[in-house]
C-alpha cells in the first residue's frame, strides 16, 4: 500500500518531469551519419525503386495511417493496372501486343503515338512504335526501317532465338534492348526510343532514337563568375552528366538513375565518386529519392523539398547550383549530386552553412582575395539579416550609442515624418521587395532598369513626401545590397525573411530582443542537419580544422577533405604538392603517378630549406 501511495504522490512530479525530460518522438526515422565501419542497416530500402509494383499496395495502406487522409483514397487506376501482373508480360502474338499498346496509349485520341506496321520478308508481320516529336526521324528511317525492309526470307529463318540475334544485328542503332515487360516498353517509348516487335517473339526490341529540340549550353544565369568556366547546366540530363564527366574523367564517377513521378516519370540521377563518398550518405540519398511517391516533378526545387532534412527550417540544407565545375568540385570532396531531367540545376548534398556561403569563384582566385571576399560575404549575411533590426533597436532604445551629430541629423530628418520608425522600416522593406519581385516579372531589359530606377525614384519620392527619413533609405539600400552579396539564392531568400524576424525583435525589445532572437536563430542552426551532417560543422560540432572555411588558405595547403564527411579517402594531395620547391624533385617524365608516397621520402625534411619551409607553413 505504502509503495502505491508513494507512487501516487510521485506521479504528478514525474509527469511534470516527463515534460522536460528527453523522450524519443515517434517522428519518422532520421538519418545520422555513422562513423566509418558503423552499422549499415536499412540497406534493403534501396530495393524499393526496383520493385515498387509488388509492395505498392501494402505500403500505401500502412503509411496512410500515419500520413494524411488523402492517401487513404481508393487506389488510382494506374495502381490497379500495375496490380495486374499478367498484363505486364509481353505476349508472343502481334495482335494482343498491338492492342495493349493502343489501349495504354489511348491511340485513337492520342495523336502523338505513331505505330507503323509492316510485313517483313513477305510473311512476318511486325510494327514499330514511337512518340512523335521525341525521336530523331532520320535514325528511324535510315537505321531501323531501311535495314528491316532490306531483309530477305532467309535472314529470318529458324527459331525465335536466332531471330533475336538476327534482329539485333539488323537494326543499326547503337543501343538495343530486349524487353519482356510492358512497363519497361512504355517507359522506353516515353523516353523517345522506338520499340520494334516482330510477330512470334515474346519480347520487344527497344532501339535508341531519342532526338528532340533542347536548349544549348549557356552561361550560368545566377552564379556568374569573372574567372572560371562559363558553362552552365541545361535541361537535358545526359548533357548535364556529360558536362560533369568532362571535368572529372574518372571511372569511379557513377551515375545511378531513378524514375520519380507517377504521371511525369521524371528521370533523376545521383552522381558520385564511388571511391570517395561515404557509403552511408549514398545509401541515405538512395533511400530518400527512391521512396518518393508523387505524381509530378518538374524542377529540382521540387525535388529539394522532397528530400531535405528540415522542411520547416528557413535556411536551405541543400545546395543548388547550375555550374558543372562547382558540382564537380563538391563531388571530389566526397558528396553526391542529384540531377534531374528538365532542370538546369544540380542539388549537392550534404552541405554546411560554410559551404553555402562559398562562391564558385573562390577557388580560382588567389587566396588573399578569396579570403577577403568571404569575409565581406559573411558581413553581408549579418548586415542583410540584422541591419534594419539594429537600426530600430538603436533609435528606439539605445539612442546613447549613436554619435551626437548623427543623432541630431536623424532627429531633424525625422521631424516631418508622421510615422513611428517601425512603420517606416516596414514600408521601405516592403517597397523594396515589391520592386524586386516586379523587376523579375517585367519582361526584358525594362525589368532590370525598372528595378534600379524604381528603387531610386521611390526612395527619393518617399523622402521628399516625408513618408520616410533619408537615413532609412541608406539602411534599406545597404540591406538590399548585402542580400545580393549572399552567393546562394535560397539562402538569400531565407535571410530576407529573417530580417523581418529581427525587425520585430529589435522593435519590441531592443538589443535584448535582438540578442534573444539571435540565440534562438543560432539554436535552430545548430539543430539543423543536412543528410546527417550537422549544418554548422567545423564550428559546432568542432571537427578537424579546415583550410577552406572562412579563411581560404593557399591551395597547396589544402591537403585533406572535410573531416565531417568521413570520406573513404580523406587526403586530397600529398603533404608537399608543389614538388618543384624541392631541389631533387623528380623529373616530370619519371614522376608518373607516384606522387602519393614519393616526395616526403625522397627528400627528408631539413635536407633543403624549401621543404622545411613548406612543411612548417602547411602545419
Amino acid at each position, binding site marked *: 500500500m505504502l509503495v502505491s501511495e508513494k507512487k501516487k504522490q510521485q506521479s504528478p512530479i514525474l509527469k511534470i518531469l516527463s515534460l522536460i525530460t528527453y523522450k524519443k518522438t515517434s517522428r519518422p526515422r532520421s538519418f545520422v551519419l555513422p562513423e566509418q565501419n558503423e552499422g549499415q542497416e536499412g540497406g534493403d530500402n534501396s530495393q524499393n525503386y526496383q520493385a515498387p509494383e509488388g509492395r505498392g499496395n501494402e505500403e500505401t495502406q500502412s503509411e496512410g495511417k500515419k500520413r494524411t487522409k488523402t492517401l487513404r483514397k481508393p487506389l488510382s487506376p494506374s495502381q490497379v493496372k500495375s496490380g495486374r501482373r499478367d498484363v505486364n508480360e509481353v505476349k508472343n502474338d502481334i495482335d494482343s501486343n498491338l492492342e495493349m499498346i493502343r489501349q495504354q496509349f489511348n491511340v485513337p485520341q492520342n495523336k502523338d503515338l505513331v505505330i507503323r506496321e509492316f510485313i517483313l520478308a513477305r510473311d512476318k508481320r511486325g510494327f514499330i512504335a514511337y512518340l512523335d516529336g521525341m525521336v530523331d526521324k532520320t535514325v528511324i528511317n535510315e537505321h531501323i526501317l531501311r535495314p528491316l525492309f532490306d531483309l530477305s526470307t532467309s535472314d529470318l529463318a529458324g527459331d525465335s532465338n536466332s531471330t533475336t540475334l538476327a534482329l539485333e544485328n539488323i537494326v543499326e542503332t547503337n543501343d538495343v534492348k530486349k524487353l519482356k515487360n510492358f512497363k519497361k516498353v512504355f517507359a522506353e517509348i516515353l523516353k523517345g526510343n522506338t520499340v520494334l516487335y516482330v510477330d512470334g517473339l515474346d519480347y520487344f526490341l527497344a532501339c535508341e532514337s531519342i532526338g528532340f529540340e533542347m536548349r544549348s549550353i549557356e552561361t550560368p544565369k545566377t552564379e556568374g563568375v569573372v574567372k572560371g568556366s562559363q558553362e552552365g547546366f541545361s535541361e537535358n540530363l545526359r548533357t548535364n552528366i556529360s558536362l560533369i564527366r568532362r571535368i572529372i574523367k574518372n571511372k569511379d564517377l557513377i551515375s545511378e538513375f531513378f524514375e520519380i513521378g507517377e504521371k511525369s516519370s521524371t528521370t533523376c540521377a545521383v552522381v558520385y565518386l564511388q571511391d570517395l563518398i561515404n557509403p552511408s550518405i549514398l545509401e541515405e540519398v538512395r533511400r530518400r529519392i527512391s521512396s518518393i511517391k508523387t505524381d509530378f516533378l518538374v524542377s529540382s526545387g521540387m525535388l529539394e523539398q522532397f528530400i531535405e532534412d528540415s522542411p520547416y527550417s528557413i535556411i536551405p540544407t541543400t545546395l543548388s547550383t547550375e555550374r558543372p565545375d562547382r558540382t564537380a568540385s563538391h563531388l571530389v570532396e566526397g558528396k553526391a549530386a542529384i540531377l534531374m531531367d528538365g532542370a538546369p540545376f544540380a542539388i549537392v548534398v550534404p552541405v554546411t552553412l560554410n559551404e553555402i556561403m562559398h562562391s564558385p569563384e573562390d577557388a580560382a582566385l588567389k587566396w588573399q582575395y578569396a579570403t577577403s571576399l568571404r569575409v565581406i560575404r559573411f558581413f553581408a549575411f549579418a548586415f542583410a539579416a540584422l541591419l534594419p533590426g539594429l537600426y530600430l533597436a538603436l533609435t528606439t532604445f539605445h539612442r546613447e550609442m549613436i554619435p551626437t551629430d548623427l543623432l*541630431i*541629423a536623424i532627429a531633424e530628418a525625422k521631424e516631418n515624418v508622421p510615422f513611428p520608425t517601425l512603420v517606416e522600416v516596414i514600408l521601405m522593406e516592403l517597397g523594396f521587395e515589391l520592386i524586386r519581385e516586379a523587376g523579375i516579372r517585367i519582361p526584358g531589359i525594362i525589368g532590370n532598369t525598372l528595378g534600379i530606377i524604381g528603387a531610386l525614384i521611390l526612395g527619393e519620392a518617399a523622402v521628399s513626401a516625408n513618408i520616410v527619413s533619408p537615413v532609412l533609405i541608406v539602411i534599406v539600400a545597404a540591406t538590399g545590397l548585402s542580400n545580393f552579396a549572399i552567393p546562394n539564392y535560397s539562402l538569400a531568400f531565407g535571410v530576407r525573411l529573417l530580417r523581418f524576424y529581427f525587425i520585430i525583435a529589435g522593435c519590441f525589445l531592443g538589443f535584448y530582443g535582438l540578442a534573444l532572437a539571435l540565440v534562438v536563430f543560432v539554436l535552430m542552426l545548430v539543430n539543423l542537419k543536412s543528410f546527417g551532417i550537422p549544418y554548422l560543422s567545423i564550428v559546432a560540432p568542432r571537427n578537424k580544422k579546415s583550410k577552406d572555411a572562412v579563411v581560404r588558405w593557399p591551395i597547396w595547403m589544402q591537403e585533406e577533405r572535410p573531416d565531417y564527411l568521413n570520406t573513404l579517402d580523406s587526403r586530397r594531395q600529398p603533404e608537399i604538392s608543389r614538388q618543384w620547391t624541392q631541389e631533387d624533385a623528380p623529373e616530370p617524365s619519371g614522376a608518373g603517378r607516384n606522387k602519393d608516397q614519393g616526395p616526403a621520402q625522397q627528400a627528408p625534411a631539413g635536407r633543403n630549406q624549401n621543404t622545411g619551409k613548406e612543411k612548417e607553413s602547411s602545419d
Partner: protein
Amino acid sequence: MTKAYRFLSGLLIALFFCLPLNGCYDSIEIDEEVYALAVGIDKGVSNIIRVTVQYPTYKDGGGGSGGGGSESGSGGGGEESGEVNGTVISTVEASSLLEGISMLNLSSNRQISLYHTKMLVFAEDYAREGVVRYVEPLARYREVRESMRVVICKGSAEEFIKKSSDFVGANTAKGMEMGFYQSQNTGYFPDVFFHNFYSSLISPYGQCTAIYAGVNEFKQLDSQEKEKPELHTDVDLEPGQIPRKGGSKSEFFGTAIFDGDKMVGYLLQNETRFYLMAIGKFKWGIFTFEDKRSPGDAYILEITSSKRPETKIRFEEGLPVIDLKISLEAELISNQSRIEYETLDKLTELEIEIEKYFHDGIKGTIEKTQREWNSDIFFFGKKAAAQFRTIQDLEEYNWLKHYQDAEVHVDVDVKVRRSGFLYKTMPIQSTSPDQKGRK
C-alpha cells in the same frame, strides 16, 4: 501526449509574454526627445538652483546651424526664445537639478534627455560652496552620459553657455567636442570627464580637478600702440583675459582645483601644462623661451612627452618623499637669434636650460598645490598607498591631509631631437654689417 504538448506550448506562450516584463519597454522615438548638449548650474535667486540647458533645434539646416556667424552670437535669433546658433538655451529656477530639467520639458515640448550631454558647467562661486549635491544625482541617474566634461566657469554658467557658440562649423555638438579636444593640442586646460570627476571626489588618493573657463568680452586688446613691444614669454592669464578678438567668447584656460567637493583655487595656463606633464597627460604644445644669449629674441620649441612620468614614493622618518621623473622631447621650430643651436655643445647647453625651466615650473606647481591648497591633484596618493600594508593603515594615515608634508624631488629630462626642416642655422646675407648670425 497532446495534453503535454498543449501544456508545454501554453507554458512557452506564457514565457513569451513574460519577455516584455524584463525591462526594455521604454521605447521612445528618436524625435520625441531633445538631447541636451550643455547643462549649466547657477545660484538661484528665489529658489536654490538655476539650471540652464542648451539643446539643438530640429529645424532645417542641419545639426544646429541657424544663426551662424552673421549674428555674432550676440543673443542670436532673439533674446526671448533663447535661440542661439541653431540651439535653444533655456533657464529655469528649481529646487533640484533633475527637477529643473524636467520642468524644462515644458518649454521644449519634448522630453529632455541627458544621453548626449557634452558639458556640465558650474558657476565658480557656486563651486566654491560645494558641488556634491548636484553631482551625486547625475552619477546615480541612469540617463546621464558619464563622458561629459566638467567645467567651472568664472561668472554665470548661463552666460557662459550663451557665449560659447562655435563659429567654424554648423554643428554645435561637434564644436563642443572639438573644443575639448584642444586640451591635447595645447595643454592649456585638462580634459576632465564626469566619471573621472566623480571618482576623484570619493577617492582617498587624490583630489579632483575640472576645466577652468571664462567669458572673454574682447576688451583685453590694448588699442594704443607702443614704440617697441617687449617680449613676454611667461604671461600668466586667467580665463577671459586672453587678449584676442573674434571667434567664440568662451575660453577654457586653466585648471580648477578642488578640496573635497569645494573649489579652492585654480592653476593658470602654464601651471596647467606642468600639471599635465606631471600626470602624463601632456601630449603636445608650443613653448616660447627668451634667448638669454640674445635678449629680445626668442626660440620656440615644440614639446611632446616621450615617456610616461615615473613616480616613486617612499617614507623617510614618517614623511613622504616623492621622486618624479619626467621625460620630454623637444623640436626646435624657430630660432630668432640665429645662434647655431644645432651644434652638439650648444644643444646640450640648450637642453640644460630647458630642463631647468621645466624643473622649476613643475616643482613650483606641485609645491603651490601643497602650500596653498593642500590638494593632491596629481594623485600621488595612489603610489603612496603601496607603502601601506592595509587599507585601514592608509585610511588612518589620511594621505590627503599629509600631502603638504611631502618632500618633492623632480627630475626632468629633455632631449632636443629635431630641428624642423632646417638642420643648420645659416646666417642671413645682407649689406648691413650688424645682420644676425654673422660671425
